[in-house]
């Protein structure tokens, strides 16, 4: 059985972890929104027709990791 002091420790640890991650979370959300708004200007990707191979895959992958889920 989990004691009351254990639950208190878990809650304290959770609050500490959340406060530690909060600045990173906020930076990530803002960076994601900024990238999404920037990338939305380049929706016409017909240029991919002219390019294929390594650099196309690289560019598509870079766009993939830059897009917030």
């Amino acid at each position, binding site marked *: 059985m*989990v004691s009351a002091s*254990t639950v208190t*420790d*878990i*809650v304290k*640890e*959770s609050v500490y*972890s*959340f406060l*530690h*991650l909060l*600045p*990173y*979370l906020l*930076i*990530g*959300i*803002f*960076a*994601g*929104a*900024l*990238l*999404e*708004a*920037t990338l*939305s*200007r*380049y*929706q*016409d*990707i*017909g240029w*991919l*027709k*002219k*390019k*294929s*191979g*390594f650099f*196309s*895959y*690289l560019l*598509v*992958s*870079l*766009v*993939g*990791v*830059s*897009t*917030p*889920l």
Partner: protein
Amino acid sequence: MIPLLTAGAPWALLMPWMISSPLNSPNTFFLIAGALGYPMALAQIVAAVSLGVISGIITDCLERKGYLNDQHFAASRQKPGERKGNANGDGLSGLTMMPAAPTTTKGFRQIFWRSLSKRGTRRLVRQLVIFIFVASAIKILVPTSWIISLFGKEHWYSIPLAAFLGIPLYVSNSSSVPIAQTLVEGGMSPGAALAFLLAGAGTSLPAISGLVAITRGRIVVLYVSLVFIGALFFGLLFSVL
């Protein structure tokens, strides 16, 4: 993804997107940096991009040999004589039919604020809070010796085990990061943590269910194989470096 599929884009261009997109995002990068440090965050993003490029090359080879013909539902609905995409990128002109991009500052601001306030962002924060609590419970209730005995650097099976563990434990990027942090603090090797993050993200229920809805069996098998083998490879590579 849907406009790309309906425009008949080749799988060799879709696969890098399908693989790299769930593996990383700006939110994930900064959360990993905060929880596990910048080397791990950089390793995760390099692994995601590299896996995307490798998957594009492998998919291109398979596509040229005809193994991936008619693998998406949009293609099966096309009428005979209609244009379809192929490995040379033919058929991509349809992509220009996508909605006009906002070129004004007002349009930019609209998308920026919409992205900040969308449901996905609120869900991300909610899941993070829940899984921070779960991770704290693991930290306090699970003995460190258990974690070291399963995921310690000296065990050869730590990386495959972490990759397998990532499949059921992974709900979203925000949920897995606190759990990975707790496991690393408890003795999990960095390579195993990277394998856990990569395999979990790629094979999570939302990623697979989305894929199953729009593609056919061969693409799903290829996708899962590439993500899982890639997670093992980059996990091993990170533990060696």
